[in-house]
């Protein structure tokens, strides 16, 4: 459950017989499933017609829900979702042309590199067209004699959010302190202003790899093909800064070619002492627990620094280190009242959908942005309100025992009186009816629906790793018995009872907190 959205019988068998390492290796060996872009193409969303699908954002939502709810390679996608919450690009900020392809191509970068290397991932997302649009590397122009300055957006966020963070870190992720016991800032505004020069001169590449442009009668301008989204941005030296760069103690001279400058800058960030612990802690938070011990962070950060074969940034090794760490694998104890994390709403919904064996009646996956907290999930993949994700790694819910204990709980940033009620109402609806063409089948459960203890046990294992209390299980079983289901009940009656079983488990605090 820390590694995927849901678990299958095959997963359980493999884990118990061959163990974690073999199971993980099998996941790493799985080929990449259908990409987001390939899926959009398969649905004809690249058609240049008066319907103007090239302007619609909603196909980006359908794409990501298809990716998360269907397909076999779900560990890769679970890791990509975690990455998408650190290296944020948001569909809701993409405008004008092909927002769905821009977000899909960005998502495909994450899945392609999820089992690759951090350094390649960093470069690929820097040059990704969607990231370029989101953080303004696209069209970023050099300084000029009339006072124009390079845009600092990407330069700032690549340091603050993607690689090194704000403060100097020890190898275990804790802050280094100066002589006055204050944290030491990693960079200054001057570093940002200097680094921004590196990211000037980039623009969308419309034509490489067979890109075309189609004149149409219903728009003034010709409509480009989707290559602008799938091609990495191209470099135009005319628009590149002519000023020397000095950042974080690294100098890049004005004669350095643009591509080399980029490599030097990204290497500087990749090899920074902060990057390992900074990234390790956030990925542990996304997958395992909101408050890892410094020792856990350091063990993962050490693997980030060296996978055992001298390679830095090997993400497979990082995932293995996170998921097989003693802290992740220890059985929760009653005494450890802070271990774990709140499951984020996207993961709850995806876990339910896969466990309920949802299927689309027509392949369209008409599931929109589910961000509305009052009526839906209060969160939707690739729909962060800003580059700061749905929640921050350092979020402390005020006036709680979590705050008193000096701990953080990122997911609580999107949890409140409205979202908790909205989620409960949403899950009651969805567990029964699904969404549009995407319906739950409950295929495996229907034949045993009359056996309430078996149903509840099956769901408890697959949704919570048997972590619900006996009291909660008792309440669920009692509620299900009122349905009076027997072997000859109609499948519609059985379906309703199974939906209720899922609903009651999915709203229980014992489920909401993954331990």
């Amino acid at each position, binding site marked *: 459950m820390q590694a995927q959205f849901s678990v299958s019988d095959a997963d359980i068998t493999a884990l118990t017989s061959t163990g974690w390492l073999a199971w993980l290796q099998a996941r790493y060996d799985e080929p990449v499933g259908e990409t987001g872009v390939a899926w959009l193409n398969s649905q004809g969303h690249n058609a240049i017609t008066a319907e103007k699908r090239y302007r619609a954002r909603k196909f980006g939502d359908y794409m990501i829900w298809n990716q998360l709810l269907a397909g076999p390679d779900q560990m890769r996608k679970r890791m990509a979702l975690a990455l998408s919450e650190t290296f944020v690009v948001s569909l809701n900020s993409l405008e004008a042309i092909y927002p769905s392809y821009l977000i899909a191509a960005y998502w495909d970068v994450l899945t392609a590199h999820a089992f690759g290397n951090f350094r390649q991932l960093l470069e690929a997302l820097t040059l990704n067209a969607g990231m370029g649009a989101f953080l303004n590397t696209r*069209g970023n122009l050099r300084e000029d004699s009339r006072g124009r300055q390079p845009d600092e957006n990407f330069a700032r966020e690549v340091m603050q959010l993607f690689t090194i963070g704000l403060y100097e870190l020890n190898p275990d992720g804790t802050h280094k302190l100066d002589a006055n016991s204050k944290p030491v800032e990693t960079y200054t505004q001057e570093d940002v202003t200097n680094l921004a020069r590196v990211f000037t001169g980039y623009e969308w590449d419309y034509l490489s790899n067979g890109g075309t442009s189609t004149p149409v009668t219903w728009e003034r301008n010709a409509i480009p093909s989707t290559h602008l989204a799938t091609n990495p941005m191209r470099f135009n030296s005319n628009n590149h800064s002519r000023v020397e760069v000095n950042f974080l103690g690294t100098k890049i001279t004005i004669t350095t070619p643009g591509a080399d400058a980029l490599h030097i800058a990204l290497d500087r960030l990749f090899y920074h002492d902060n990057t390992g612990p900074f990234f390790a802690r956030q990925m542990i938070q996304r997958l395992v627990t909101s408050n890892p011990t410094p020792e856990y962070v350091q063990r993962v950060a050490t693997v980030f620094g060296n996978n055992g074969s001298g390679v830095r940034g090997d993400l497979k090794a990082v995932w293995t280190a996170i998921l097989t760490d003693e802290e992740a694998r220890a059985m929760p104890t009653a005494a450890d009242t802070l271990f774990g994390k709140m499951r984020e709403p996207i993961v709850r919904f995806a876990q339910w959908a896969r466990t309920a064996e949802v299927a689309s009646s027509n392949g369209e996956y008409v599931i929109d942005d589910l961000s509305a907290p009052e009526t839906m999930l209060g969160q939707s993949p690739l729909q962060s309100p800003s580059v700061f994700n749905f929640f921050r790694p350092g979020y402390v819910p005020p006036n709680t025992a979590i705050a008193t204990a000096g701990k953080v709980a990122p997911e609580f940033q999107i949890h409140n009186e409205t979202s908790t009620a909205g989620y409960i109402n949403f899950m009651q609806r969805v567990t029964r009816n699904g969404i549009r063409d995407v319906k739950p089948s409950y295929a495996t459960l229907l034949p045993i629906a009359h056996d309430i203890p078996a149903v509840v046990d099956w769901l408890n294992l697959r949704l919570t790793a048997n972590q619900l209390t006996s009291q909660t299980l008792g309440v669920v079983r009692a509620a299900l018995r009122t349905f009076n289901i027997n072997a000859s009940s109609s499948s519609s009656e059985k379906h309703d009872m199974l939906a209720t079983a899922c609903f009651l488990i999915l709203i229980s605090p014992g489920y909401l907190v993954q331990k």
Partner: protein
Amino acid sequence: MQLSALGVATPLAINLAAIGEAAAFDATDYKALVCVFLYGGNDYANTVVPYDAANYAKYHEIRAGVAGEDEAGIALARADLTATALTPLDGAVLTDGLQYALAPQLVGLKSLFDAGQLGIQLNVGPLIQPTTLAQYQSSDKVANPLPPKIFSHNDQTSIWQSDGSEGSTNGWGGRLGDIALASNSSNAQLTCISASSNAVFVAGRDALQYQISPGGAIRIKALDGPLRNAVNNIVTRSSTHVLESECTEVTRRSIDLEGSVNTALAGVTLTRAFPTGNRLARQMQVVARLIGANAALGVKRQVFFVSLGGFDTHNSLMSRHQRLLTWLDGAMSAFYAATVELGVANKVTTFTASDFGRTLSSNSDGSDHGWGSHHFVMGGAVKGGRFYGTAPHVSIETDDQVGQGRLLPTTAVDQFGATLAQWFGCEPSELPGILPNIGNFSNANVGFL
């Protein structure tokens, strides 16, 4: 003791006994503060715009890269500012003889300025103590402390709201709520309310943030159906696990307050129309309705938080900013009119805040992260039609900016907040507990209230 640990069914008497000692005011009337947070960092220079010929020329030269008065680069056209040019009611003369105009979209706010219900606080931002450019540049940060991470969104958002970087657990709106809890009798949990997402601004040391959706409180539908006992049992079940327990607390509060809040809202008639298709207006509408329900809810002091995102205008500043300001103007104007209709215009003070201001310099079609900014204060109690604080030069070289026109604040957020706090009923002696740096400034009241 944690308020949340008491459970919502428990009276607040235990906490209030302690808080009552500290509360200097015994509120018999009603007052509300409303924070309108502009997430992303509002571009000050295209919100409150130099309009007189000489200063406009400098503005245009910097923002467009050329001389002129037409729209160019990220400079607005001078002719488009004529209708919203501002003449201070007190005849004050600003720095370099500056005359300002509001952005052309801010026609409603311009009317409120002229009518004396809107004041403009110039160049306000986070400061620990009064700071000159030389002190900003000084390497001696012990003698010349600065707020941490001045140009970072999340940290400056947190500092504006709470005086601390990200991870702060209480904000000055919430701390004001703390001293008001005792006045709010049985509905003390409705002292601090966000109609936006969770915001540290409205979390106090004791006061909890209550979150409400634009449509009102959300009812859990299953509690009205055959599953009600099972659902109620499951979602309110206590747990020894801290995270689970907190889930339960939030759900309990949701359930317990939903009935009284929605009943009170149903009793409020508001004929004033709010603009549609405007996220901020929807939030401000429910705030107006809650304010209208203050007597029914038995509350005397409330702090509200609403927000509008999208102000991080690194690119397409001209089109995006105009759309955002149209929403801001529509929402704030309608809200003021609603408070007039409810007869509480003098009892409600609304102010804007934002992560930071932006650069005066252009990055071709946008502006970058800055520091100080101009903000609005609106309400019947506001001494409006005037400017407060010090107008910055229109310059990327003067010593009231730290480069590219990133303003070095001349009024601290703590001074701005302290002015609002004293109107709200806070005694000067209580200010340091609410705005911790206020003692470093000689003037704890900017004067707009």
